[in-house]
């Protein structure tokens, strides 16, 4: 099992500033994720967690700062190239293709250069083993799935890219407790497959449990950084940045 930061990190962002119009959403974000690491990104609503992920995957251009992936500066690369390079993205509202079937949703990531029929079949089998309900519903339109199933599809779809890192934006939001623990298991599964994860969440216990390191953001920047095992839910710093 790889430990954090043995070499250069897999992804590093330095001093990111991002604006929506004049609204200064990211005010200097710096963080990194090592190969195979699970890193949590906590913070209240509106602090810029989702915008950080969107800036990393290239959906939003920063006005300042850089994103470095496997040692290369990728700040102005278009999202589809970053996806091909090995970044998976699971957005906050899942955003599966509602009018495509489950299978077609998966194929958007499965059908790419270098994938022989053999490899495709193997990858599908593996993912269906993790998400049997998707196998059952493979010919159903994505929009007919329940919220939890759509979340699983969104994650499975990202896994089709065989990514080196998955950017997961609030996967447990709006899900029932039973589904929350399923998401927890999926994070573990991904970790075992040596996929790094940058996990944006507001669920503090889950994040502290699942992550190796945790960043806490407030007002557009990282305000605290610690190893997950050194943080407890009731610590003052958690209350300060995430409580009331």
């Amino acid at each position, binding site marked *: 099992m790889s430990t954090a930061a043995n070499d250069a990190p897999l992804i590093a962002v330095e001093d990111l500033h991002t604006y929506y119009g004049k609204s200064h959403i990211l005010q200097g974000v710096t963080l990194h994720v090592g190969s195979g690491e699970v890193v949590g990104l906590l913070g209240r609503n509106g602090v810029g967690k989702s915008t950080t992920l969107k800036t990393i*995957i*290239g*959906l939003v251009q920063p006005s300042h700062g850089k994103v470095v992936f496997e040692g290369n500066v990728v700040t102005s690369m*278009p*999202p*589809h190239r970053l*996806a*091909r390079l090995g970044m998976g*993205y699971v*957005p906050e509202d899942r*955003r*599966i*293709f*509602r*009018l*495509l079937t489950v299978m*077609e949703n998966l*194929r*958007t*990531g499965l*059908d*790419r250069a270098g994938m022989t029929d053999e490899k495709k079949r193997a990858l599908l089998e593996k993912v269906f083993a993790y998400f049997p309900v998707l196998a059952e519903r493979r010919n159903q339109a994505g929009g007919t799935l329940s919220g939890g199933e759509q979340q699983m599809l969104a994650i499975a*779809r990202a896994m*089709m*890219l065989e990514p080196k890192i998955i950017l997961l934006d609030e996967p447990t939001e709006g899900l029932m407790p039973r589904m929350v623990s399923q998401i927890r298991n999926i994070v573990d599964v991904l970790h075992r497959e040596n996929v790094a994860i940058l996990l944006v969440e507001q669920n503090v216990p889950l994040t502290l449990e699942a992550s190796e390191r945790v960043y806490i953001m407030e007002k557009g920047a990282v305000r605290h950084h610690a190893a997950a095992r050194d943080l407890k839910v009731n610590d003052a710093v958690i209350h300060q940045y995430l409580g009331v």
Partner: protein
Amino acid sequence: MQLTAILAGIPWDQILIQTLNGIVTGMILALIASGLTLIFGIMDVVNFAHGELFMLGAYIGVVVLATTGSFWLALLIATLVVALLGAAIQIATLRPLLGRDPLTTILATFGVSLILQNYALWQFGPVARKIQEPFSGHFKLFYLEYPWYRLLIAGLSAAIIGGFWLFLKHGKFGIWIRATTQDRVMAQAMGIPVPLVHTAAFAIGAGMAAASGVLFGPLVGVNHTMGLDWVLKAFIVVVVGGMGNLGGSIAAAIFISLLEAYASIWVSPAQAVIVSFVVLILTLLFRPTGLFVPTPK
């Protein structure tokens, strides 16, 4: 009795003839409208140059036919050339405008339409040209000699649209187009090269317009303004059918063409055109997302 008198008074022969005419026209219109709705659905561009791509296709058909004598080569080459031209237009004028106010793309395509119209006028002159039908031959339909050719173009249009629909439903590129149409952002996040998909979709739409230009050529004169009438009808079809909705466009095209054809039994064809506008207004008033769209999302 009264009933038989009424039934006898209805001009059945004309209705049947006009049904055929309506279907033929409808299929051509469907082919033009499919390209237009594809372009709108995938990149939110209202392509005001679509009629000119139709017109250019017809002219290229004229030229190739004159050189090679083969109608089928004319159809093929016109489609390919205009598709390539469409790709070039999209890359040069529309790609740089991505993400800006939609008004800018309307102006851009309108500008392209003016350029293409005047190019055609300069290149080919104001006199209308003719495309010869690939074969003649009629069959007897009541008192009329109905040309086989008309049925052929309806069939070919249907085949092209059908082929396109199959292409969308199966295969990797079909999925790419459908995914990009539904959610361009997530399509990118899945590694789909969205800028390329946009260019390809525009090229396909342009090619479909050109094909309908060649197919329709023998029925009307080919001149530099022929795009104008058809693009207006095509827009009506696209709005009535539901913007971005392929099946809806096809249904709307046939529906409107049939209505117009029936109307011209009793009024002049020029007045029959009013029917399409009435349908448009009613659609906008009562079901603005499209007559043939199941439920507004």
